[in-house]
């Protein structure tokens, strides 16, 4: 009879569930830790905050192309031996930690670190800047720029530290040859 069977199955499944919770109460260790005091040992290949070594970087923008969310902005200047990465920014508020950029890089210039505590007070701090900066003669021009630490539209459309002589910096994704 379905009715009686249902009642017994209800009781049985309740008991089963209670056994499971009791097992977790008594015999299972806590997974969570008391965070700022104790931190879990991270696995070796943990994908944390990205770090780019702009001395290794050739400016090929393969990483920026590989990025599904376009959070990497690369600008470079000069030709041949003078070619240098002037601007290399990663917007980690957009980054989704997929690691595709790391796989795309031929020079191992961009890497994931074990760092994961990325809270900050200013939104601009979420944009990690690894670029070598513009050449020295261009520096005064940049200094002349009025400082705008919190640009309202500082998503992918170029940060506040966009050099004035590079209008392409405002292009979405910053994919520039």
């Amino acid at each position, binding site marked *: 009879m379905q009715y009686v069977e249902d*009642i017994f199955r209800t009781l049985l499944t309740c008991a089963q*569930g209670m056994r*499971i*919770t*009791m097992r977790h109460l*008594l015999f299972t260790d*806590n*997974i*969570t*830790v008391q965070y700022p005091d104790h931190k879990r040992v991270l696995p070796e290949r943990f994908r944390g905050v990205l770090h780019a070594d702009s001395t290794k970087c050739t400016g090929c923008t393969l990483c920026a192309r590989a990025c599904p969310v376009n959070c990497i902005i690369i600008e470079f200047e000069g030709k041949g031996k003078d070619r240098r990465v002037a601007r290399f920014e990663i917007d980690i508020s957009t980054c989704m930690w997929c690691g595709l950029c790391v796989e795309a890089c031929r020079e191992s210039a961009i890497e994931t670190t074990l760092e994961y505590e990325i809270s900050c007070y200013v939104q601009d701090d979420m944009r990690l800047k690894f670029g070598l900066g513009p050449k020295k003669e261009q520096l005064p021009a940049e200094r002349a720029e009025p400082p705008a630490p919190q640009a309202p539209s500082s998503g992918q459309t170029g940060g506040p530290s966009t050099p004035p002589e590079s209008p392409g910096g405002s292009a979405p994704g910053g994919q520039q040859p």
Partner: protein
Amino acid sequence: MQPVTASVGAPDLKDRLDVLLTYLPSFLSSHGEIVSAVFLLIVALAVLLGVSVYVCLAVWLERKISADMQDRLGPMRVGWHGVVQMLVDPVKLALKEDLCPGAADRPFFMLAPFVVLAASFATFAVMPFSAAFILADLDIGVLYVASVGAGVLVGLVMAGWASNNKWALFSAIRTIAMLVSYEIPVGLSIVTVVMMVGSLSTQKIVLAQLSDAGMAGWHLFRFPPVFMVSFLVFFIAGLAEVNRTPFDLAEADSELVAGFHTEYSGMRWSFFFLAEYADMLIVSMLGTVLYLGGWAPLTVTRPLTIDFWVFWGMAALLAWYLHWLWTRIYLPRGEYGLIVVQTAILIAIALALLVVPSLAWFLIKSLALIFVMMWLRWTLPRPRIDQLMYLCWKVLIPVAFVNLFVVGVMRLYWR
């Protein structure tokens, strides 16, 4: 498993507390009505205070137990494993602002928490904490508990209506439907016990279960399957009566924000909280009184009785568990020397239990039931409202009726 005939009569007053509570009132009443009234008031306030302390403790325990069941840590910051949390929470609530929404029905909005709280706390008047420690041994004790529950219902509805908030109102409607339905199985399962005892007085019900055989005298083990079913019905319906998960549809936070106390804050909100936990205690205490022998202690010293096996078996299990825990946390496995120490400690605790007053037995049994409630809460999901009604009207009530009939026949032929 026929119980030894209960020795109904004047209980053996071996507890110091009971001796005090038996002779003090008569001594005080010889000094006039006012003195004894003041004494009664003090005892009542002590019960109130005790319940408040229990609520603080239960909230902390619930947080820790739920956390551990979900492999979390729970409160850890304030004090050792967050123990001081139970002092900090009420202080925080007391310091919060007491808000009243502009569109609310102000007088009843203000009044509702007090109605709920008063109704909850009034129930403790008939709870037999021990042979002498009962505020009022009414002839209609159990009926009184059932009737005071109606006050809680009205208070909740009052809160839900006066908030002038649609979720609160939905919650009020659900509360009415649910509580009115679940009163029936609770009442029917209470009646089975009342039929066995022949009295509504809570104290007499406990005395009827008092026997030399200890556990075998409990109503739970009478006519083996019958009263267990009765207890199960009582407990399930009692869970619904106190709005506990899995039956907390009145405050289902995924649907109705927080139900009837959506608009409340500060102390008034804490009154609802207090009342909810006090209600849990009431249902557990009532279950203890009706089925688990109330304050009757276990007779663990007599060898080869059921009590003996159950009690020492559980003690051994606990010793084994403590040893397991100890080796797991602090030491590598295989340190078997410790088990001797731990077993010794446990035996000491168990021996200490033998001399604890009946009040402690009562509290231990009630708190065990409360633990089961918490256990269930963190195990089961919440049913839909129609499933809830199905459970009540099509499962619990028929089962309770059949059970009542069986108990009636039993009572008629096998006294």
